[in-house]
């Protein structure tokens, strides 16, 4: 349908105003002043925009991209009707997308049956973004008469966290799964690492017979046993509570937590483990346990959409639903942590879970944004002490704690902290031998 713009009504108003004024004052000169406006209006009506017959398409060069990568969006338009003076195309990308090249809108003349395309490049932070559609407006040169049509050409960009590659993390949960993998399972069988010696059974490989031990016995033979290496269940718990994830100058600590989670998920899945994810914030968002590349994508897509939120029922980890994770599996909590979470972690350990805590340091993160004053120095020192006591208490419980200063690379911090088998586990091994 033809739209009469505000400019059209202004001209109409002037024409009628002059006519009425001229009639009322009986002045022909005033009526003559309407002539240029009437001719202007007539020219606009003669060249009124035709019916719209558009076909449009949107192409996104990479619907799934790493965080802060440029994405090119291409809009193709095909017009199957007569030409028009002015064509105005307006694409409205989500406001979080930062345009870095090209324009989202176009103004150009339109030829009969013309087809053309244009593109623009945007940069997107982590998230999932939906394009609703474009609005096409046809008009004549004077902008008095228009035709407008919204074309719902949808599109979607998923910007997943950029993942640093991790080298080696030693985990040793109390329970492993039945398939072979890289984790020592604390059970004798076939494997690489020596576990012990047992009496020979029918069917054992002859090359595994321990001749030294057997020579000390007259009738019996003994075979070497190796520690079975299996895969494990790994549960990633991402803390998405708003009050623990501090934001400084539009940069949130949560972004670091998400990066760490994605990185750990990538590592554990590459190692063959079964990985699940639970985000604990406004609600409990979950990715069910799974293996492989498809599951990695599933976790990335879930992480792309994660946001912090406040839910008073989930203020601390006391309501963490442990039944979502297999018994005695490896739990990796990614959380800045607060003192009230301590009892919940104790509860996890007593339930038999092997807990690892990756904690982006909120004190140092926030302290860097302040101007230094003596009072503030004191406050920061107290906060550091409180946090270090909390982390120390957890470490004494057997939690493997990584205190991550977020200005340091994550992979380096992880390699330093978790790149070796934990000391108490090594001692345990020595005792068992």
């Amino acid at each position, binding site marked *: 349908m033809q*739209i*009469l713009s505000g400019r059209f009504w*202004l001209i109409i108003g002037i024409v009628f105003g002059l006519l009425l004024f001229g009639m009322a004052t009986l002045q022909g000169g*005033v009526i003559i002043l309407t*002539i240029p406006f009437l001719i202007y209006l007539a020219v606009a009506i003669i060249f009124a925009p035709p019916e719209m017959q558009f076909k449009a398409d949107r192409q996104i060069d990479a619907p799934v991209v790493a965080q802060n990568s440029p994405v090119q969006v291409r809009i193709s338009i095909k017009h199957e009707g007569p030409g028009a*003076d002015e064509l105005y195309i307006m694409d409205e990308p989500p406001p979080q997308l930062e345009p870095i090249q090209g324009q989202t809108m176009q*103004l150009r003349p339109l030829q009969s049956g013309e087809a053309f395309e244009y593109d623009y490049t945007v940069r997107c932070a982590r998230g999932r973004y939906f394009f609703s559609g474009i609005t096409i407006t046809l008009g004549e*040169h004077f902008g008095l008469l228009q035709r407008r049509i919204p074309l719902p050409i949808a599109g979607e960009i998923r910007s997943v966290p950029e993942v640093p590659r991790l080298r080696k993390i030693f985990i040793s949960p109390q329970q492993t799964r039945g398939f072979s993998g890289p984790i020592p399972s604390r059970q004798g069988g076939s494997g690489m690492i020596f576990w012990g010696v047992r009496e020979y059974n029918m069917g054992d490989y002859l090359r595994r017979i321990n001749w030294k031990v057997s020579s000390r016995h007259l009738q019996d033979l003994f075979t070497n046993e190796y520690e079975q290496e299996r895969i494990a269940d790994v549960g990633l718990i991402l803390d998405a509570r708003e009050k623990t994830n501090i934001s400084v100058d539009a940069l949130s600590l949560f972004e670091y937590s998400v990066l760490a989670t994605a990185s750990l998920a990538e590592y554990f899945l590459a190692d063959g483990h079964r990985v699940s994810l639970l985000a604990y914030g406004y609600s409990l968002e979950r990715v069910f346990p799974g293996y492989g590349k498809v599951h990695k994508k599933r976790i990335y897509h879930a992480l792309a959409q994660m946001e912090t939120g406040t839910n008073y029922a989930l203020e601390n980890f006391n309501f963490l639903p442990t039944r979502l994770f297999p018994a005695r599996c490896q739990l990796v909590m990614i959380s800045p942590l607060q003192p009230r979470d301590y009892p919940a972690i104790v509860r996890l350990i007593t339930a038999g879970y092997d807990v690892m805590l990756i904690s982006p340091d909120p004190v140092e993160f926030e302290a860097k944004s302040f101007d230094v004053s003596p009072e503030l120095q004191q406050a920061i020192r107290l906060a550091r002490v409180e946090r270090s006591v909390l982390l120390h208490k957890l470490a004494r419980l057997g939690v493997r704690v990584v205190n991550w200063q977020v200005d340091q690379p994550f992979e380096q911090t992880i390699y330093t902290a978790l790149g070796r088998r934990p000391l108490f586990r090594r001692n345990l091994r020595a005792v068992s031998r």
Partner: protein
Amino acid sequence: MSTRLCTSSLVLAACALVIAYGAGNLWGWAVLIAVLGILGGIGPRSLRIKFGGVWLIVFVIAAANGMINGLPALPLVVAAVASLAYWDLDGFNQRLSRVDPSDATRSLEKSHLRRLILALSLGLVVSLMALSIRIDLSMTWAILLGMVIVISLRLGIRALQHQKKLYP
């Protein structure tokens, strides 16, 4: 190009009105119009974007007022035409400013100017011809024409209301 023409049109409209009012010894009005012209020409762009139509209305009212006061008709018609050109080009420049300059926008600008010059030249010529024609209308015709105007205006307002319902 269109930006320069826009400012020139405003200056032309203001000058024509100043000349007309000066010829009628109405110097107070002439100074006021000159100030308005200067304000539109060199004032901040945001002011023109917000009140683009105001200059058109003010200058048209000034031209109509000049006609009633018996001022020279030629500069008044020129002022009305120039203020229309200013208003049109101002709107066009605003539309152009939303996009980056390209070959497409340059060709659009050329064809816009061509059509605007054609329409306004025609309007000016017809108006000047009309100034030399004198038709005496009886009271009946005047009332009839007045009624036609009022009815048309009413239809126009109804159409506007209908459109606002469809495209709020």
